[in-house]
């Protein structure tokens, strides 16, 4: 029988639909009987939604400036390949 701890181990697989039909069914049966696990699964799902909506990674200005400069330089070289010859 699936215990709460077992469910916590496979919770992400359940949320992402990665469990077999049989495993998924045993999770669903456990969830029908266990309010704590329903809260846990609900909160873990909310956590994944939170990360989906979170804009990942603020880029630092110095990095952006370096990329812009290198790209601009490469574009200039490309459009006038013989300018230094």
């Amino acid at each position, binding site marked *: 029988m699936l*215990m709460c701890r077992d469910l916590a181990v496979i919770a992400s697989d359940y949320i992402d639909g990665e469990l077999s039909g049989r495993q998924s069914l045993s999770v669903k049966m456990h969830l029908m009987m266990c309010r704590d696990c329903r809260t846990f699964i609900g909160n873990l799902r*909310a956590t994944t939604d939170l990360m989906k909506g979170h804009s990942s990674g603020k880029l630092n200005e110095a990095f952006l400036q370096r990329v812009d400069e290198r790209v601009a330089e490469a574009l200039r070289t490309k459009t006038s390949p013989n300018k230094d010859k």
Partner: protein
Amino acid sequence: MDSAVHTQTELSLIEALRRGDAMAYQKAVREYSPGMLAVARFYLDHSSAEEVVQDCWVTVIDAIHKFEGRSGLKTWLHRIVANRCKNKLRASKREVATDFSEGLEPDLAERFNATGRWDLPPKLQFHDSADTLLENGALSDCLDKHLSALPETQRSALMLYEAHQHKSEEVCNILDVSASNLRVLLHRGRQKIFLMVEAFQETGEC
């Protein structure tokens, strides 16, 4: 196999990049670099990762003409970064050190008793929708802080799967991990973020 679903915006951007439009590059760099850095940080330290992403953008100027559109632009860029990182690792004969041990985060594991039932169950429900939660600037900052503190491998897996919404197979391909190891990385990372959000909701502190 990838399906080639390009939005009109993406097609216009690709065309502009092919024309060598500097403004289009600036736009693309800002839009796609966070994901590219997430890929690079899986393999390399911070400064090497930034260097690789810079190099990749320069490579893109020529490579974009060979882009056949069989995958989305984002996936294509992420693969370029991944390949470059893998080459760099091969050249330096280094490997990505990753803990793929399964199971629960210790802080979560200790909340179960010996019979496998909850000793300290989650007290609060995260009632609010993700959008509402993210409107809380303090929580958003806290999320940033905790994402930064995750092991790079877990963070990259989460970023690519959740924030950049790649399919599992694509994340496995880009990060060169098996499907089962990706599952471990995602679950370990999610548990840490779950514990962070829970503590934040209970105490209001990060």
